[in-house]
């Protein structure tokens, strides 16, 4: 009886001792040397692992950020300027400011103005539809409404409005990570600067057809008439492939284009109700 006890204790102690030594050597030999600053920088970033910066994850981004002090394009869109400043502070650098951006939907064709002309019955995915055919609704450039962007959004910032059947961006939640931009097979999502007081103007259409065709497909689409181009006092609007585009860097938010657009496809966001004398900001 006592001998059994003794042997058990002995064997287990021996085993424990040997394993401890083995563990020690393994820990010594396979120690990973890592820049301690990586963890410090990671601490101040939001750590969403969304890929919005263009890297495979936060860690890779931070590594690149630390090792390339001269690159200007490294920016965490989720954390924004605030987080980047903190990160720069950890490394003792100057932060580079970037204009905060937000995703906008460049389609205005709600289900009301653009009724279904056929019934889709396959996988509920915009990508599959776009791969297959022109889509359920008349305009073949417009939103397919199956919500690939909503699926792609990690921040719950997108939701399909049940009334318009179009995705709606929640400005508060949107981090401009760009996941929706890659997800949309029709390339409808664009990251635009949030603008002063969150005010911005953009063309909510992506139709590149000639006027008559575009008009037939959707009454609120850009018909490429060029009225906005002429109306813009700052040369901010260009017309390519029958589609107007407002350059956010040049736009001064005067809203002249909004007034002249015959199809009302230029949207103004977060402006107070229009009065006669507030045309200029």
């Amino acid at each position, binding site marked *: 009886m006592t001998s059994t006890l003794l042997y058990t204790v002995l064997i287990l102690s021996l085993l424990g001792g040997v394993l401890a030594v083995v563990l020690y050597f393994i820990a010594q030999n396979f120690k990973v040397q890592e820049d301690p600053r990586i963890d410090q920088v990671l601490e101040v970033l939001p750590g969403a692992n969304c890929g919005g910066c263009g890297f495979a994850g936060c860690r890779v981004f931070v590594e690149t950020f630390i090792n390339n002090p001269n690159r200007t394009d490294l920016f965490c869109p989720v954390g924004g300027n605030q987080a980047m400043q903190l990160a720069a502070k950890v490394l003792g650098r100057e932060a580079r400011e970037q204009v905060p951006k937000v995703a906008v939907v460049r389609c205005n064709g709600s289900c009301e103005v653009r009724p*279904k*002309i*056929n*019934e*889709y*019955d*396959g*996988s509920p995915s915009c990508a*599959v539809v776009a*791969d*297959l*055919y022109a889509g*359920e609704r008349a305009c073949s450039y417009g939103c397919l409404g199956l919500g690939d962007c909503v699926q792609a959004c990690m921040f719950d910032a997108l939701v399909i409005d049940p009334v318009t059947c179009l995705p709606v961006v929640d400005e508060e939640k949107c981090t401009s990570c760009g996941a929706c931009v890659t997800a949309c097979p029709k390339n409808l999502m664009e990251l635009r600067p949030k603008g002063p007081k969150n005010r911005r103007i953009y063309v909510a259409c992506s139709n590149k057809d000639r006027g008559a065709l575009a008009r037939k497909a959707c009454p609120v689409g850009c018909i490429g008439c060029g009225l906005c181009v002429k109306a813009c006092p700052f040369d901010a609007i260009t017309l390519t492939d029958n589609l107007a585009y407002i350059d956010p860097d040049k736009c001064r938010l005067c809203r002249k284009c909004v007034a002249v657009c015959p199809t009302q496809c230029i949207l103004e966001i977060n402006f107070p109700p229009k009065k006669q004398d507030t045309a200029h900001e």
Partner: protein
Amino acid sequence: MNKLLVSPAPHWYGKETTQGIMRDVIIALVPAVLVSLYLAGVSALLVLMVSVAGCVLVEHLIVRYMMKKKTTVHDLSAVVTGLILALNLPVSSPWWMVLIGCVVAIGVAKMTFGGLGHNLFNPALVARVFLLISFPVQMTNWAVANGIFTPENPLIPGFLLGLQGQLPDALTGATPLGIVKEGLANGVSIKALAAQHNFSYSGMFFGHMSGSLGEASALALLLGFIYLLVRKVIRPIVPLSIVITVALFSGLLHLADPIQYADPLFHLLSGGLLLGAIFMATDYVTSPMSPLGMIIFGVGIGIITMLIRVWGAYPEGVSFAILFMNALVPLINKIKPFPYQKEVKRG
């Protein structure tokens, strides 16, 4: 105007449904169920009914009130689980034990993993093993089939009370595997045991073997097997590889020492081997998908079963063997199938 329907190709589909497959499995189980009813009458019926109803109810409650989704019981998979669980229990199982089995099978082994298609282990088997370990007395109380009512309470089926301790000795009996195991442990030879307990192969084949509900008749199980094959519900690879492995394994042992080891036929017909090989190892969700994987799976089950039967503490090892191999299925599924044709060049 009716709008045209659009979808990617193909535009029509086969008639098979998940529900249809489950229905086929249920039909395949009918012979075994009938045999158990014939042998044990109302007691068997009650075990079967409680088990099926319990499984369906547990699934319904969990899906409806815990997962807050539309109920999934119409896919009939819970019925299959219930039937297989019942067939794995002794006739004398008390009702509360069957119900615990249902909760373990559906609640623990199936729904916690996410329901149909996601479970790692065969639900009925998990329940059986759980019960076997938790209630060893009740689970090994092998009533010899004939008592519909207990002698003391002629109007109350023994099932309601739980038969243990109430049956006269003449009505309970050990399974052939149990007898052999115990006999060998006491140094009695196989031949002597066979003569003493009078078990014949024809009896085991046609259904006079004591054991759980579904183990009684090999013939009934084989009928179900043939039905499943004809309806192309299962492929014969897994059952065949199990049976062949067991036959080879036991055959070699028997050749080496006929006194110590029973012959292959005994091993094939006794215990839950056929029930397990035909209905539990072939469960889609918990078995490999490629033919090669199926062979590995079947051979593994065969070997482990024999190891437990011959050298293990339990007389029967099919359930443990299948559960063990279930755990390896994700790994086995990683084996890539042979390519259609090896690549010549990449362009």
